[in-house]
Structure formats: structure tokens, C-alpha cells
């Protein structure tokens, strides 16, 4: 499946994996996302979503990170080749 170029963490389906390309923007939120481990090349998997579909729960670096949907939309990703 060909993925759109502006695919973000918010587009991931359950149990789907992706690799971080970059974080959009240069504000406090962007910096916070990077500080939480979302730097380029990191592998991220969507675990689950809260009831109502927001926030989302991801796994990266071996820990679980909860992000609101609009926060996840700031992180652009490349699809992870099936492993």
C-alpha cells in the first residue's frame, strides 16, 4: 500500500508500526515530543486508543507514551517495512 507523504502517528492503526521522520513545528510542543523520545529513526507502535479514540497509546524505546490525537498528528512517520 502506498502511503501519503504527510502520514503521521495519528494515522496509525492498532498494532501498526512506523518510523519517525520528523516532528512538525518549532514550538514547545514539538520540543516536548522530541524530549519524549520521538526523534528521527525511532520505531513507534500504536498499542491502543482510549474510549472515544483519543488519546492514543504508543510504544517506543520500550516504554508506553500517551499522546492526544492532535499531538500525534505533529509527528510525521515513514511506514515500517514488515518485519
Amino acid at each position: 500500500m502506498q502511503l501519503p507523504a504527510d502520514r503521521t502517528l495519528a494515522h496509525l492503526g492498532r498494532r501498526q508500526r512506523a518510523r519517525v521522520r520528523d516532528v512538525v513545528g518549532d514550538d514547545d510542543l514539538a520540543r516536548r515530543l522530541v524530549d519524549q523520545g520521538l526523534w528521527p529513526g525511532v520505531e513507534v507502535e500504536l498499542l491502543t486508543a482510549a474510549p472515544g479514540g483519543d488519546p492514543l497509546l504508543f510504544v517506543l524505546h520500550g516504554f508506553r507514551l500517551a499522546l492526544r490525537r492532535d499531538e500525534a498528528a505533529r509527528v510525521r512517520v515513514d511506514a515500517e517495512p514488515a518485519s
Partner: protein
Amino acid sequence: MTPPSLAGTVADDVVVALVGRPNVGKTSLLMHLTGSAQRPVNFPGTSVERVESCVRVGDRRLRVVDLPGIVSLHAQSRDERVTIDYLRGEGTAPPDVLCAVVDAGKLGVELRLLQQLARLGRPVVVALTKLDVAIRSGAPVDTERLQRALGVPLVVTNGFTGDGMDALRAAVVGAVGQARTDAADGAAARDPAAVASAVRLPGRASRTATDRIDAVLLHKLFGPLALALVMLLMFQLVFTAARPFVAAVEWVQGVCGDAIAAVVADGALRSCLVDGIVNGLGSVFVFVPQIALLIGLVTVLESSGYMARAVFLLDRLLRKVGLTGRSFVPLTSSFACAIPGILSSRIIADERDRIATIVVAPLMSCSARLPVYVVLLAAFFDPITAGLLLFLLYMIGPVTGAFVALLLRRTALRGGRSPLAMEMPVYQRPSLRVVWLQVRAAVRQFLVTAGTVILLATVVVWALGYYPRSPAIARRYAAATAAVPAGPDADAARARLHAQEQAEYLEQSWLASLGKAIQPVFAPAGFDWRHTVGVLAAFPARELVVPTLATLHSLGDLEADAGAADPGLTTALRHATDARGRPTMNGLVALSMMAFFALCSQCASTLAAIRRETHSWKWPAFTFGYMTALAWLVAVAIYQVGDWLGYGLPR
């Protein structure tokens, strides 16, 4: 930057700062490391607090400073800025040693912060935590290799058992004054992700216990159900388990009162001691069981990792009313007692979210309001209606709170929504020692700050209700008591006269004059002057309203039920009449009074706690103002609408 003064020459104190990301287990480590009481200390020139504890290591005194969790050296909140300024030594002496608390389970992200800390140029000691969790989840770490790669002392610790504390204390003291080594420079230069993957031992990544628990607790259907159950259990436990302790406090209070009465002669001094100070102390101590239980339960939920799940489940809902998922803990707690609720608001990082939460927390119907509801509901409503009304009274809090929070976040506390971007920790068994130390610290803090304020307020209200003493009344009742004929009823008759005398004193006291003076304000709510005095007397602590109403109504009862020795407040309220014999109380007045009590800010301890937690008098003043205004408006609205519908008092 000047090097830190070396210990031994200037002072034997070694200041070590615990630095790390949120949830790495800094607080557990602090408790195990020092085992002594925490002392909140303000950063110089700010109102931001840090927690400090001391422990002796040989001939040195180790001062351990617990700092708020940070994710990088780039500050975003006020607390983070102060923390980072302190680490950099800006405006104050920097710590002698940085103890970086590092979670073995997520080295990749941890080492990035460690790298930034190493660049500060202070001696660094690494305390590696949660290695057991990392091993269980299939990602063990080669600690020797990690230490070599980092080039700084590394100690494996366990925040649950307290293992590794001696080694950590020794490593910290040993690191004092150590210049930066080349190895540390090496660590600072290296790519943290590469280091993290290099030291990872081969392990089988498997479905962990946390995954299995989360499959249920974060389930679309079972998750919210489990959360509701946890909330209900917590509330029930605080409500019921605290009851015997509350009864014990009241019993001690009674015993002390009697003991004083036996020694001190009847008069101003006895009344001040018994009705003022003992009652005041009692109404402070009566909160202690609930605070201890609630803080204990919150600590258990927090350190077990469940609190983060609750925040995750509720974030969407609470965000709609301008709060955050993290507001859930303080708000739920406040249904038992607003004070521990307000203390637990510290888990909210964003200042605006935190203040909005604190300001609406006292709207939740705390357990001290229940006696008022019970007395009035029993007096004027049948059991089924009473149950329904009780439910509605409990709903007033969250509904009003949502509106107030939304309004505040759109006006005075506008903007700056705090990001969630929150780590969900691995589930773990809470350490009882840590829970106990947290409870002890919270209770101590409450007794010192709220304790002094409420005691003062109670004594002031006592004085207003006691003075002036009219000698005419004293003479009249002395004569009447002397004239009581001897017989089987003599004691009861004397007791009745005494109660009547007390009521008469109260009626011409400053408090009553004040009540009568502002009676017109409460008249539209259907209140009689006695209700107004009851409301006034309840401002330091709403527990005071029932005894005050009882004292004030003892006059009328004696006329209505001359035969009954003690008709009880319920009957007294039902039959209360004014000077012209018209009833002063009915179901509608009861309803308006209950709504008033549900919304009004009548607890000096809560206001003191708000002052403490917001570091300003502005927010307690605002809370008091808006709650009292709202209470008055709703009480008046209820009475006026009811009166218009024909349920009012006969005129």
C-alpha cells in the same frame, strides 16, 4: 562558573540533587535513601517548592534534594525553569553532585537526558532503577558495560526493596569535588541511542504483565467500568473506614471537654477552652483520618501505575470542560474531603489547569456536608424523596464545577493547554514504606498550616457567639434555677433552664446581632435570623452549623413541647416559629438551605490549603467569593421559584 566549595573545609554538608524524568522513581529513592521526614523548601526567590531530606554518611551530612521530574534541560513550565536554573547554579549555589535517576527499561530516552546533565559539568552519579522490570519485560541491561560506556559511577537500586542505598550513598559522597573526566565527556558526546542498544543484553520480548493488565483496564468497555469501580471503592473506603477514627476523635474531644469542665469553673475561660479551643482542635483533627486514608490510596494508585491509566481514560471528557485528565484525582478525592484533594492537585503540571482544578474542587460535596443534608432531609421529606434529593445534592458539585472550570479557562486562566504527552509507567507493587512516609508528610503539613488557621477562626467565632455577657440574664437564670423545686425532675428542669440561658446569651451576642443585621440578605432565600446565624457560624467549618442550630432552636422547643425533655433538632426544626408564632421552616426553606450548603465555601481549612498550594491569597479569596455568591443566588432562586409555585412559608 566557580567550582563548588569542597566539603571538609567549609561544611560537611553534601548537597545532592535527584534528577530524572517523571515516573523514574525519584520519590521512592529519596525515601529509601534518607528514610527521614521530607522538608519542603522553597527555591530562593520563588514560590516553587523542592523537597529535601537529610541523612548522615560517616562524618558527612548528605542533603538530598528531590526535584520535579524533567524530560530535558529545556524548561517549559515554571517548575521546570526553576529546577533547571538550580541545576545550572543560576542565582543560587548548585548542588555538589547530580544523582541522575535512570529507568533501565527505557535507556534510549533516558540517556538523552543523562547526556544533557553530563554537559552541565557537575559530578554525576547514576542510580539505575527498575532493572528487575526491564529483565522481566525481556530487555535486560549489561550494567558493567553501561558504566564503562558512561564513564560515571553507576549503582543499581531498587525503589521497592530499598536495595543499593548504601552503595549509592557511598558513590555520591565519593563523587564530591570530582572533576569532569574525559570518560564523562565521552559519554556526553556519544549517541545515546547507540549506547542504549549496545548495552542491551539479548532477551525475549514477550507480552508482559502490564500488557495483559492494560488489555482489561484500558479496554473500551471494561476500562471505564473498572475506573468507576475503583473510584467508588476509594470513595466508600474513605467515607466508611474513616468513620471509626472520626468517632474516636470526637470521643477524645468530649473527654477533653469534660476534663476541662471538671477543673475550670463555669465562665468565659471554660467556654473558651471547651467551645473554642477543644472544638477548634477537634474540627482540625477530625480531617486527619480522611486525609491519611485518601493520600495513602492516591499514593498506592499513583505508584502502582494505575493513575496514569485513569488520566488516559478521562482526558477526553475532562478536556471538554477545560480541565485535564490529571484533574480526575483531586476532583474525586474532594467528594470525601477537599483538603487532600487540593493537596493531590500537585500531579497536574500546567499551572492554569492546576489552579482551575483547585478552585472547583471544593464544590464537590464533601463528607462534612452530609450531616446538614441528613438533618434537614429527615425533618422535611419522606425517605424516597430524601434519597433522590441527596443524589441531586451530590450532582450539584460536578455540574457546577464543569461550568466554573470552563468559564475560568476561557477568561482568567485562558490559553496554554498543557500537553498530555505522558508516559504510562509499567505496573508495579507500591512500597508500603513509601506510602506511609507520604501520608505522614501530608498529615504533618496539614496540621501545621490548616491547623493554625482553623483554630484561629474557631476561636474568633466562639468569641463572637459568647460576648457580650449580660449580667441581667445571668441573674434571672440564677434565680430561676434556685427556684426549681426539689424532686425527680429537678435535674432535667435545671438542664433545660441552662440550655435556655445559653440560647438567650447567643441571641444577644455579637454573632446574633451580625446575623440579624445581614438577615435581609438571606431573607429572599427564606432564611430566618437563626438560619442566618447558623450559616455565619458555619463559615470556619461547616460542621458547626448543626450544633449552632440546635442551640438556637432550644428556646422555641421548650414552648412547643413543654413535656419533652429533649425533642431533638429534627422535631425542633419542624416546629420552629418566629416571635409571632408563624412557622419559620418548611421543605422549601430546607431545600434552599441545603443548596446553599452544597455550594457555599464554608471551610477555613480548605481555604488555607488553597492558599498553601497556590502560594497566593488571590485564589482562596476568589474561591470563597464565587462559591458564596453562587450559593446565595441558587438558594434565592430555589426559594423564589418555590414560593411563586405556592410552596413558600405562609405570610
